[in-house]
């Protein structure tokens, strides 16, 4: 199998090669002879140059201090500092083997340290999970990305939920308190308010103007490329959202596409947070607008309606001619009143010259509270306490109406409500003594003269700022448990699939105490996969596994990639997530992550791939031909661009990404002070990046690693920095024509490939290895810790159990959640 032949390049963190027994043997075979030949003369028991001796080094890489010493050795070797030039020099193969051995052991040691857990393991919720949890707990839309909300979470190789990385600082505690107050106030407002209905209608108030101009109308808002209505000013015509929550939106608009051009693209843009909350390509004739209606959560802020495409040069007078237009747009028949010095947007046959959006009306209503949410909130609030203040008394003559008398607090009922709330918030039953603390809070507030509602809110805030809420706790202080209990298991399952707390059904199963039964957990898995909240898994898991957060980190150079825009970037990521979703929903094989004859495309991405625009809104499944050179994850634009630097593709980074995401192995890091690749001098022939890298690889120190990483990246040289197909590499500087792309390579076993298509075939031929790596990634995501050598046999077994069926994704998931690995602490 190919993987065995790739052993030198990719043996590592997952698989049987990680078995501890292999370590001494490898040491004797690789390290000891190297030290004897090249090092011991100066660093043994007799002589210690630099006060450094090798013969007493521990091989326990889980010890931080020892790991650092080994890291130092790797550093000296990598930089070529050791052995000194005056001494005999090792061969490239010998050096590579040693560096590989040290790197693998360092990775294992780090994993063991990161995975280390005491009697109780604490896994802090990521801020995304926090928001999901309060959404499911109380139906409150809490946006943790709003400045001043929760801190951004650190990542470990793309994963945002690794317990040992998600530490807690005083700043977190402070922000949790503020967040909890906001959440409670939003769910149980001091002053009740009905959902607000608002309307954006450009025709309103224009009747007189239309009559004066002799126009039929109605007035519509014309959005040319990059034009938006609304800015941070509340009077700018944007959608003003005072209270965060769920909103129903209804937009009536046309979207006109110029012949052969792009579709107009509607973005609803939060002008404060500078993020998009809605994106859609719109196609509807000018005279037959469409109405879109949907419900979504919105944070407070002012939202702009934006035709989000590259626009006109804003310094041009013709652009000024457009924006200084005092006249209003009605329709393309009535252009006589438009400013003649602005850009012409419709041709003389009323055809759009540019992608144009024409807004008629936007209606929004909210925050909406569903019956389900109302019930959830009712369950968390004692009936004897009024949630909101009575409405203000109308002003007028006569005696003021006295507010109704406040009934005394029913402590028994209040305590029961707190228990119910804590059960959901903490995802386990709270003990009486735990609830006592919040009852005391409540009583002290009442004693200070606060109303029952204020006091009860304080108690709720207390529960939400408890560590029991923002930590997932596994284990018990008083017993050494090997397995998670049913409550913990319920949380594992729900945070894996929904990124959130268990629902009532799952809690009930946990309470019944039979969730460990494989049949029961299988049933719950099937139920949860069918729930709409599975969208969170589809969004988060590929994002973290494939490190999609890196897409767009280096904004592509607009001179080199003028067609690149935010929607293309977003479409790239959405393709990968839609692809993952399809594999999951259709229960396709893991093999299709590597190679396939289909992908998911929308109107923006299809032309980027040189493919026809699929019919239908949004992402559509598209059949691919071999000549399309796509299929699988590896040739998706998201993957190809996240490993580029915005200007040029980076084969080494692509190789590292393949190694990490597909093989679950992190190659040794580059030594410090590596000279960057210089632009080709003007008097030299143009050279591809590959040709320049091959120059690097002639150095022994560089070659030791590059020859194992680079082939994984060179295979994708037919794709530029934004993932578009090419046959020649555009090289700035240098003389002569742009050189042709050479994506051919030879694997260490000698088997050649001519490019990505053949490379994918070779990868797919070793599906077992990929399946094990995939399970390792899934386990890292689910168990919130780094996998260690101890986990390798179980990972291998989980993958192997799905082999007979051809590794269908749902079977892999099912094997995983019913595995010992998932059940053990």
């Amino acid at each position: 199998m190919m993987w065995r032949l790739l052993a030198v390049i990719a043996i590592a963190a997952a698989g049987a090669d990680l078995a501890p027994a292999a370590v001494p043997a490898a040491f004797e075979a690789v390290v000891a002879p190297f030290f004897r030949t090249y090092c011991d003369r100066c660093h043994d028991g007799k002589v210690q140059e630099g006060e450094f001796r090798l013969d007493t080094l521990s091989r326990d890489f889980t010890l931080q201090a020892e790991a650092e010493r080994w890291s130092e050795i790797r550093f000296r070797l990598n930089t070529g500092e050791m052995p000194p030039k005056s001494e005999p020099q090792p061969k490239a193969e010998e050096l590579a083997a040693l560096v590989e051995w040290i790197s693998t052991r360092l990775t294992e040691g780090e994993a063991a340290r990161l995975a280390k857990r005491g009697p109780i393991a604490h896994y802090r919720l990521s801020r995304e999970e926090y928001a999901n949890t309060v959404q499911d707990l109380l139906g409150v839309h809490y946006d943790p990305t709003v400045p001043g909300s929760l801190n951004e979470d650190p990542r470990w190789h793309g994963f945002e939920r690794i317990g040992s990385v998600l530490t807690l600082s005083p700043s977190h505690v402070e922000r949790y308190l503020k967040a909890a107050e906001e959440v409670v106030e939003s769910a149980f407002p001091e002053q009740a308010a009905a959902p607000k209905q608002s309307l954006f209608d450009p025709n309103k108030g224009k009747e007189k103007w239309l009559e004066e101009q002799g126009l039929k109308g109605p007035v519509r808002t014309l959005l040319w490329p990059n034009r938006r209505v609304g800015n941070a000013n509340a009077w700018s015509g944007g959608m003003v959202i005072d209270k965060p929550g769920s909103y129903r939106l209804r937009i009536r608009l046309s979207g006109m596409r110029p012949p052969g051009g792009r579709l107009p693209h509607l973005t609803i843009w939060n002008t404060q947070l500078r993020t998009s909350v809605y994106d859609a390509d719109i196609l509807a004739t000018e005279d037959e607008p469409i109405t879109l209606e949907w419900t979504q959560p919105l944070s407070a802020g002012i939202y702009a309606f934006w035709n989000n495409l590259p626009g006109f040069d804003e310094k041009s007078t013709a652009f000024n001619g457009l924006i200084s237009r005092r006249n209003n747009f009605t329709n393309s028949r009535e252009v006589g009143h438009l400013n003649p010095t602005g850009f012409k947007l419709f041709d003389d046959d009323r055809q759009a010259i540019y992608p144009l959006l024409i807004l008629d009306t936007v209606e929004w209503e909210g925050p909406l509270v569903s019956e389900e949410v109302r019930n959830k909130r009712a369950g968390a609030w004692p009936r004897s306490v009024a949630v909101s203040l009575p409405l203000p008394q109308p002003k007028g003559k006569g005696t003021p109406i006295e507010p109704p008398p406040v009934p005394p607090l029913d402590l028994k009922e209040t305590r029961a409500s707190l228990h119910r709330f804590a059960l959901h918030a903490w995802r386990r039953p709270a003990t009486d003594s735990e609830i006592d603390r919040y009852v005391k809070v409540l009583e002290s507030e009442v004693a200070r003269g606060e109303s029952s509602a204020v006091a009860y809110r304080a108690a709720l805030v207390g529960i939400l700022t408890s560590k029991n809420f923002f930590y997932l706790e596994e284990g018990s202080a008083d017993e050494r448990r090997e397995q998670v209990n049913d409550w913990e298991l319920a949380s594992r399952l729900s945070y894996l699939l929904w990124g959130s707390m268990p629902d009532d059904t799952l809690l009930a199963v946990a309470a019944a105490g039979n969730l460990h039964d494989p049949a029961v957990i299988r049933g719950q898995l099937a139920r949860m996969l069918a729930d709409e909240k599975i969208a969170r898994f589809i969004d988060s898991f590929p994002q973290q596994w494939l490190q999609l957060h890196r897409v767009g980190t280096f904004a592509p150079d607009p001179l080199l990639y003028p067609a690149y825009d935010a929607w293309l970037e977003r479409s790239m990521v959405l393709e990968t997530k839609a692809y993952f979703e399809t594999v999951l929903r259709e229960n396709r094989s893991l093999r299709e992550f590597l190679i396939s004859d289909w992908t998911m495309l929308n109107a923006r991405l299809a032309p980027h791939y040189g493919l026809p625009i699929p019919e239908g809104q949004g992402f559509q499944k598209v059949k691919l031909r071999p000549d399309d050179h796509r299929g699988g994850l590896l040739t998706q634009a998201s993957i190809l661009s996240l490993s580029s630097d915005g200007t040029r593709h980076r084969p080494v980074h692509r190789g590292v990404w393949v190694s990490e995401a597909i093989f679950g192995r992190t190659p040794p890091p580059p030594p410090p002070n590596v000279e960057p690749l210089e632009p080709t001098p003007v008097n030299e022939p143009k050279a591809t990046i590959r040709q320049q890298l091959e120059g690097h690889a002639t150095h022994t120190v560089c070659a030791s690693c590059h020859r194992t990483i680079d082939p994984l990246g060179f295979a994708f040289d037919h794709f530029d920095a934004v993932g578009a197909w090419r046959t020649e590499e555009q090289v700035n500087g240098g003389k002569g024509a742009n050189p042709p792309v050479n994506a051919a390579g030879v694997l260490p076993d000698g088997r050649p490939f001519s490019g990505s298509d053949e490379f994918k075939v070779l990868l797919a031929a070793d599906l077992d290895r990929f399946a094990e790596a995939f399970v390792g990634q899934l386990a890292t995501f689910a168990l919130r810790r780094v996998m260690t050598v101890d986990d390798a046999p179980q990972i291998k077994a989980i993958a192997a159990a799905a082999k007979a069926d051809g590794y269908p994704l749902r079977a892999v998931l099912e094997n995983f959640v019913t595995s010992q690995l998932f059940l053990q602490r």
Partner: protein
Amino acid sequence: MNFLSLALVLALGADPRLDYVPKLGEFPPAGVGMYHAGELVEIDAINRRGALRIVGNLDLEKYHSSESQPFVLLPYAMVRYRGAPAELRDIPIGTVLHAYCVYPVGYSKTQKQPRLGLYVEPQDHAITLEDSFSFYERRGQAWKIESIEPGKLNVISTGPAEGDGPLGKQMFNFDVSTRVWKGKQIGTAADLAPGQIVKFNFTWAADWGLGRMHATDVWVDEESRSTAAELQRQVHIRYLRYHWLPGWIDQVEDQGGGKGIVTVTLFDNGDASLYEQVKSSSKITIAASDPTLRTWLHAYDSKSGPLLEVKTIPQPPFGHSGLTIRVPITELLEGFRPGRIVRIRPDGFPAVKLPPEERIRS
């Protein structure tokens, strides 16, 4: 109106010369328009409009009670002063002018029209506007002095005996205010002599209602006339170089992405040398204009392209310079649509900001 025309009018109940309604993108047929002659009493030079105190026709009631006849110059209107192309701004208030006017664009007799002043004609859109010097000269007519009395010049017209305006034996007032032009200099009344072929410009006079006019200027010889014409020609060349040559768009060939080839026909009423400059220009700049021929910030908001093609018509219709050009533009403007007015700049014309009063500001 000749006999044939009169017969046609009687037969059809309408006079096609008077009933012509102009259309955007169409030059008028020959000979259309209602003749108005009168003293220029009101002027809005920037918007190319004004009003005439119509000359008397022995109807004193009309003279005393009528309102002045307003006029608006059509975009392709021919304006001439002292024998050369001109703008309204070149013509002093008080000058007697001769105009042929048609209905406004889109006029329909069946639609409700704004109320007009007493004796005011609805044909108020001028296709020609000329001073007497130019009006008679264009028709090959002049005046021969038959005798001179104190304050009175008895004259007889020369050239064709038919046409609008006073002809045949006429008596015009003159006095010491009358400018007598002789050679390249200004002369005096002593330079007038019976037998001279002269050209006049006129203004109001007492007995205007009875058809009387006062001579403001008399050009007594050919040198004085050609000197006056050359000066006005240069004045107008200077004006057009700064304001650019007006025309309208015949066609826009859209090529996608905002590109297109714009075909422009240039109006007449410019000196021939300017059209020659267009033909030899390598680059043409096109600025959006409006029916008043005003522009916005033409030096800045215009678009340029190479001169792709020049078409010339040997005998163009009235208002047509005979020159049509095709210019590829990479960024079309809203004003680049068939029938819309533009001004074009060939190589060598200045591109500077005009005074704010002259610009459209929106």
